[in-house]
């Protein structure tokens, strides 16, 4: 159908983004293809290759799956910041990733986690790393005849340290900025494999490479944290808008990274 519609059709997942857009008459697709009956797109499977979440899995199902708290803790932690429970009952992970709002939580999380997106289209199946999936604000590499079917997260070592921090003026609103972070600690006690996903304060979901580099191979002390926060702040590419100045969002990214690193360290002590 997607192919025949020649760009006139839209896929309908939870409708929590698409329907408001249609209600405002900003989109008027001639055909809506409802994915809710496609069982193959729903569900969460976990094995030693990692976690696979079907595109049509709702936020609520992800939130309720206790296994994810250890198998993909950043995914679990992000959910409580996504909208309100009524919306989480309908909204899907696939809809959010396909919509590719840089202010949304999950795009930042999948990029931070090196997840892969599984896509099916007229040319068959392909798997795209998260950092290649998002091309710009509300733009992905999905072509008009393609469907996102699942997102696959690599295995999560139990010793990994992580934190999710964001700030929105009211709980459940899209955040001014957010940080999804993990790293490991090597035998020497130095930071390894730091991954920092940026939410909001950016035009495309992405990692903060400069700040990551400033963490890797260092001991996680006050000085390292302050330096990384400073770098993260300048690395964020926020713009002024009606809600906040670029300067505010950039500073906030630094604050959130600092808080995330401290929260992750506290988690280390608790281990």
């Amino acid at each position, binding site marked *: 159908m997607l192919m025949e519609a020649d760009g006139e059709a839209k896929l309908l997942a939870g409708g929590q983004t698409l329907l408001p857009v249609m209600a*405002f*008459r900003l989109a008027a697709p001639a055909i809506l293809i409802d994915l809710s009956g496609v069982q193959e797109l729903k569900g969460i499977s976990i094995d030693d290759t990692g976690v696979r979440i079907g595109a049509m899995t709702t936020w609520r199902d992800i939130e309720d799956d206790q296994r994810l708290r250890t198998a993909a803790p950043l995914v679990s932690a992000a959910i409580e910041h996504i909208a309100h429970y009524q919306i989480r009952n309908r909204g899907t992970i696939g809809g959010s990733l396909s919509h590719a709002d840089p202010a949304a939580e999950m795009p930042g999380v999948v990029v931070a986690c090196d997840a892969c997106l599984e896509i099916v289209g007229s040319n068959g199946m392909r798997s795209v790393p998260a950092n290649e999936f998002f091309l710009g604000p509300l733009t992905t590499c999905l072509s008009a005849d393609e469907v996102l079917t699942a997102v696959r997260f690599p295995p999560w070592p139990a010793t990994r340290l992580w934190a999710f921090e964001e*700030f929105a*003026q*009211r*709980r*459940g*609103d*899209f955040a*001014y900025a957010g940080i999804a972070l993990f790293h490991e600690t090597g035998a020497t006690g130095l930071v390894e494999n730091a991954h920092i996903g940026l939410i909001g304060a950016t035009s495309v979901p992405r990692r903060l490479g400069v700040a990551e580099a400033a963490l890797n191979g260092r001991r996680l002390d006050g000085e390292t944290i302050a330096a990384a926060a400073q770098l993260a702040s300048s690395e964020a590419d926020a713009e002024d808008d*009606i*809600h*906040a*100045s670029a300067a*505010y969002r950039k*500073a*906030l990214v630094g*604050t959130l990274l600092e808080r995330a690193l401290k929260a992750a360290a506290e988690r280390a002590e608790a281990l």
Partner: protein
Amino acid sequence: MTGKTIGVSVPRLEDLPLVRGAGRFVDDIHLPGAWEAAFVRSTHAHALIKHVDTAAALALPGVYGVFVLADLLPHVATHLLAVGLPSPSYRQIVDRPILAGEEVVYAGEPIAVVIADNRYIAEDAAGLIEVDYEPLPAVSDIRNALDEAAPRTHRNAPHNLVAEMQLAFGDVDAAFASAPRTRSEQFFLHRGGSHSMEGRGLIAYFDKIDGILTTYNSTQTPHAAKRLLCDILRLEDDKVRVITPDLGGGFGPKLVFYQEEAVVCLAAKLLGNPVKWIEDRREHFISSAQERDQRWDVEIAYDHDGLILGVRGLVLHDHGAYTARGVNVPYGSLSALPLAYEVPTYRMGVKLVLTNTVPVAPVRGAGQPQGIFVIERLLDMMADELGLDRAEIRRRNLVPAEQMPRTKPFVTRGGIKVVMDSGDYPASQQQALDRADWDGFHNRQAAARTDGRYVGLGVANYVEGTGRGPYEPVTVRITNAGKVQVSSGAVAMGQSTKTMLAQIVADQLGHDMDNIAVTTGDTAATTLGFGGFNSRQTVLAGSSAHAAAIKMHDKLIKVSSVLLEVAEEDLEIYGNRVRVKGSDAEVSFAAILQAVSGIPGFRLPDNISPGLEFTEQVVIDPMTYASGSAVAEVEVDIDTGHVAVHRIVFAHDCGRVLHPQIVDGQVLGGIMHGLGNALFERMIYDENGQPITTTFADYLLAGADETPNMELIHLSAPTPLNALGIKGVGESGVLPIPAAVISAVENALSPFGVKITQAPISPPELVALIVAARNRQSVTAS
């Protein structure tokens, strides 16, 4: 069920139907075959309309009519909505046309209407209407709107000043000349809209046989709507009926009569078919009245003890593009400032500024929160300079209880003397402070700071004129079933007006709430009426209900005394009957009605006048002054700018409390509204006059997560101005909250010396102030 009905929280008449899904809001009313309307609204803040092409819309199947102004002109006596309250202060008259003709002056102004089978088709058709605009420069910021070079809001207007006035008493310049201390400040204050859950809307039909126009309209003022419809459509007043069904909130903007009301009624008449229009949320943002911006340049003179000697200054007030109500909002601001405190001399001017934005009209509080904000912030600053406690400086300046009733040297906007009738303002503040642990707080604050947490406490007082007169009629009648039927010009907009009227009537007529039925907001039920605004209905309609119920009581007793052959003093009303005290002998209301209805050819018993119906319209010109104090406790995250309001203590006096639960509900709702004005609600226009915040994703309301612990303290100083001793309470909650919350935020940030002269304040703005203050500190330190 009988028992005390006043002063106790009897079950509300409104609750059962609402929880059973039997409420009836305007969109629940389905007239057979009704069509629906959609409006074409200006996409420009200011433009000339060169041409409107409606052909494609008319050709769409399911469309029954498309009207632009020219189509309607032959059918109206006037196309201008002349609604401004009288005032000598106008410098130009800018009334709204029912549809824009040659010029549009705000984005959202209606240009054309489509009537179709349903809203979907109507909106599709509206999208097919092509409006050829010639954009004109727009003005959207009051701060430069009066510049000679500023674009004119209306292209042919001489300037953007629509009205100016001042409130003045005493020799303020002399006071300043000799004052030991003065301080000047600029404040920028913003309020948003009302955002009632239910937007505006109406359904209208015209009966060709009897020539009557009937409209169910989600309005706070059905009688005013009826008058305007009569004027516009050239109909006699017995040919128009406006009914307000259940209202999903009003909060001010629904007291205004709007273009859509005239157009929908006219369309129904012209097309000979019922027409419905329900405002959607986007329309609410771009077409329902709002309050928005004020800039205050003020100076205060005071002495070394912190006593106020005088206040003077000038306010710029955003009026929007047209006069939708008048000069009452800024008048409310100017007169709220000097009410609670001793302000011996005062001169505050205001310029009402036209901008290419949605017209301004009252939102719950009607300008008063702004005036209160200014005086409260000035008091904080004075306290800071003198090293006085913020509560102490207020105590020294509050009008003391011994002076009640206290005449203030100015008048209301209607020219009526301001006499604060009762209350104990210092006691109110003290109770709020005690409950909030004001004296012990600095220990908690210091402890929190050592943990890097910034908590603060703020206090603000208010006095509010409530119960705006002159009157509100109430009719009390006994039905053939022996029920008491109460009808009033008052409008029930969600504040339990029906329960209030029933309580007052039941108190005289049998104490049985189940035996009372109340009709409000129907112009066919009462000829005269004003409706719901200005915390007035319990005071005015309540007083009329009380008076009518007493007359009914006396007549029931008198007739029963004849029928039962018992002295009047031996009789009492119980439930739906009159009985002889201490005996079984009784006569029902229904039997009494029968007796006084008469039998053809026979004499009425003891020559008593016929019928059981009394209408009263108790006139009360002076306003009654409610008062109170709020203490807010907040915590500020200095890095994100997040403000968590932990607690609000609110002490207030609304005179005698008729129904504690309803009063609590009014105050709590007002507090939440005030929190929105302190921290969240912001209607933003860009420099071209385009509205930017037109969804609840961009325009934030305080919601459940933002709700602090709220503690209410009820003080009661009954007013001598009405028989029941009641004052209004519908707006009080909102009045001191922005001032108290911002004061608390400033207090939390006192280590940095942050000063806040605006409301609302957002996290980014707060962080900017903190950063600037810290930079100042480090400059001073180095």
